[in-house]
């Protein structure tokens, strides 16, 4: 049962020029550009754009960072910065398939054993070569719940990592779990650094004084929490030299200010722009807006241990009242997709293609589509046929979710269910997840990996926010953990979801998209769901 993933070193090492780099990316992404995010509006230049040296690229983030190391602070923007400075053993390609990064290849030699071979040309930005000891140390760092509270959970099933050769590291799991492959990835839960660097900073990492030491195409030259980060290109990256010399990242929390900064030409790129203002961004002079699926899932959670949501008819009544098409069209301006499963399309497209993925996912939700007559019938069959009142807590950072619940509340009012929407700070919303005080709640979840079971392994196993338990579902998911064939694994994961959603502990609403605004002198090649999670500046090309 040996599987071997490798990338030809010849392809990678044809040279260090920027034009080679583009070929390299094309090679790493495979040629299957079709599947790079089904409804990506970004146009692919097909490699015809001219690669010019860019002196400084100014990028504006909507939220600030207080630590650069994602193990400490795992905001999505922390990952975007880390993607340029730090690397894992593997990295996602444009379609979400894992390809080698600092490891030139890896092999699963038994259900619980993974062997990584480190590329001989991997170097830290201080010029020192990456050794097997560095990898073992970095695994320990990601596993340490004090140093990396945000990733430690991901390594709970890992027994240990050991050096098994000069350039070979073997990671052993306690029990089989194919999803582990996403563990040693800088887009998820591992960032390779050096022990002497961390020790020299008294154990600090990612702070303004300690900064970062990694193997990626950039090094951090300055970091001011709540203000910005500056990155400088290095010549030690195994992948070559990036075309952008300096990357200035600025934190501009106020969206209107960010828009003005683009109008004045102060910033070149704004990531994660608010969908509400996407049209204003698109209307800004010399600016283009790119959309791509962001692997986010938004859906209702019922706490099935709380009355009246322990009654499937109540859950179905609410499910039938969710006008998901209207949510996507009207609330998201079409920049999203009606969700029919817990898995998002971008997590299975690399295996099934865009259409194949959607076809499979559509079957998961079953018969639950918008139909108020059916909602009324379902409620009539429930133990609360005359309706009831319930409140739902919505984060003030999720205006679309709030609008969706308002719309749902209007529809539910016609059948006798009163829903009161209570807006609250995002931190307070965390407390509503799985709480017995909030029988009706919602989840807005950003999948960090391309693993199809990421959300279901939480939502359908013990400790899930719906207090949902089904032995058959758990058994199917357990089987999926050991299934190494990607297509068969997807089938198992979706089978578990189909069985579970028939009882409707969750109602998927939509899969989200993220938008990036960029000066029209540049373009991002093959902008998709995974673009900003691996070295992304080499994908930025100057037009004309």
């Amino acid at each position: 049962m040996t599987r071997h993933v490798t990338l030809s070193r010849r392809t990678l090492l044809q040279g260090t020029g920027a034009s080679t780099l583009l070929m390299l990316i094309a090679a790493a992404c495979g040629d299957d550009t079709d599947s790079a995010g089904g409804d990506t509006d970004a146009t692919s230049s097909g490699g015809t754009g001219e690669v010019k040296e860019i002196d400084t690229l100014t990028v504006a983030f909507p939220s600030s960072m207080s630590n650069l190391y994602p193990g400490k602070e795992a905001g999505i923007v922390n990952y975007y910065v880390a993607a340029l400075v730090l690397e894992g053993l593997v990295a996602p390609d444009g379609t979400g398939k894992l390809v080698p990064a600092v490891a030139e290849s890896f092999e699963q030699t038994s259900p619980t054993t993974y062997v990584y071979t480190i590329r001989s040309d991997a170097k830290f930005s201080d010029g020192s070569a990456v050794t097997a000891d560095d990898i073992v140390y970095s695994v320990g760092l990601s596993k340490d719940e004090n140093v990396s509270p945000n990733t430690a959970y991901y390594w709970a099933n890992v027994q240990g990592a050991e050096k098994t050769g000069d350039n070979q590291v073997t990671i052993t799991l306690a029990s089989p779990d194919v999803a582990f492959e996403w563990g040693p990835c800088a887009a998820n839960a591992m960032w390779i650094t050096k022990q002497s660097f961390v020790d020299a900073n008294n154990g600090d990492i990612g702070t303004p004084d300690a900064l970062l030491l990694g193997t990626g195409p950039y090094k951090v030259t300055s970091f001011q929490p709540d203000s910005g980060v500056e990155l400088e290109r290095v010549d030690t990256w195994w992948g070559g030299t990036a075309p952008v010399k300096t990357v200035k990242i600025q934190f501009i929390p106020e969206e209107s200010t960010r828009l003005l900064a683009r109008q004045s030409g102060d910033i070149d790129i704004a990531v994660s722009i608010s969908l509400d203002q996407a049209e204003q961004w698109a209307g800004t002079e010399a600016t283009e807006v790119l959309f791509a699926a962001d692997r986010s899932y938004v859906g209702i959670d019922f706490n099935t241990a709380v009355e009246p949501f322990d009654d499937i008819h109540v859950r179905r009544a609410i499910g039938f009242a969710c006008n998901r098409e209207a949510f996507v069209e009207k609330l998201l301006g079409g920049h999203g997709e009606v969700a029919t499963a817990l898995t998002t399309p971008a997590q299975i497209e690399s295996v099934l293609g865009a259409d194949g993925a959607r076809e499979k996912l559509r079957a998961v939700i079953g018969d639950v589509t918008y139909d108020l007559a059916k909602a009324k019938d379902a409620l009539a069959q429930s133990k609360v046929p005359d309706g009831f009142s319930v409140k739902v807590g919505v984060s003030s950072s999720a205006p679309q979710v709030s609008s969706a619940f308002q719309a749902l509340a209007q529809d539910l009012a016609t059948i006798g269910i009163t829903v009161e929407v209570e807006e609250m700070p995002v931190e307070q919303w965390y407390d509503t997840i799985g709480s017995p005080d909030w029988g009706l709640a919602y989840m807005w979840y950003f999948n960090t990996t391309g693993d199809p079971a990421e959300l279901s392994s939480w939502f359908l196993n013990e400790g899930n926010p719906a207090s949902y338990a089904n032995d058959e579902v758990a058994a199917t998911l357990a089987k999926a953990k050991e299934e190494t064939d990607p297509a068969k694994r997807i089938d198992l994961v979706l089978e578990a979801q189909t069985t579970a959603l028939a009882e409707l502990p969750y109602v998927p609403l939509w899969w989200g998209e993220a938008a990036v605004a960029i000066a029209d002198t540049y373009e991002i090649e093959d902008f998709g769901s995974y673009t900003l999670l691996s070295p992304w500046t080499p994908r930025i090309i100057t037009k004309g």
Partner: protein
Amino acid sequence: MASRLGRGTLGRFVMVRLAATVVLLLALSFVVFALLYLAPGDPARNLLGPRNPSPELLAAIRAEYHLDDPFVTQYVRWIGDVVRGDLGTSIRSEIAVTSLLADRVVLTAELAIMAFVITLVVAVPLGVRAAWRAGSVFDRTVSLASIVGVGAPSYAVGLLLLYLLGVRFQLFPVYGIGDGGLDQLWHLVLPAVTLAIGIGALVFKLTRTAVLGELEQDYVAFARARGLSEGAVRRLVLRNALIPVVTSGGLVFAFLFGGTILVEVTFALPGIGGLLAGSVTFKDIPVVQAITLLTATVIALTALAVDIVTYTIDPRVRARGLR
């Protein structure tokens, strides 16, 4: 004069006031700590965000920050550390609170001082002149503008200034703090003007009212009747009108120092206002405590400074003695 300012009166007054300030800060720290403790939310959960946290990991984080200890134990530990000069570590960023605040306090103070200076330099002369020419076109124009200034939210004013002066005419930078030093001060001009507009309008009204009030006093009529030059009359009036203006000046500075949140967010400035906003919802108790205590200290010390200044410029207060 020197002896009056000595231990007997002012010195003792200052000591008593400082002691009262310490008591006030203690009470305030207790109240803020209690409010944060009671507020919904769990810092350990906030640290991990919306993902599946294992009970063991949550327990480990709670143990690290002593979040499971009883309220009194937590408070006593915190106050003990503060007395030893340790403000603790931010739960959110794991950075020592002192180093987290160091640069931000400087920035917010620079912003507040600049706004304060702009307010005084612009609003006080305008107020005096408007009172002097009460009813004139000048008076009515500035008074009308001040009503707009008081009413306009600083967020809207900031964006308007940004659009006009930052984007349209490209006179000022749009966001951030630049490269430090003079460039940083340059970046603070627009935010300071934004802050100054609202509070400056109030100071203008206050100055105008104070000067008008003095002008209506009998002593002004007497002075004029006795043939004092207009300049001499003005000096008399201004000196007397100064007292409420100086008193309000202290409040204005305190308000500016504690009221930078919206402006800091609008102009993407890394000051303590923006930090406080994020820390409160996160329940990052050490950071919130440090910022509220710092702000309270600034307000208390400013009030003390105002009293000392009043003492020196108001002979009535000197004669009565400080209480």
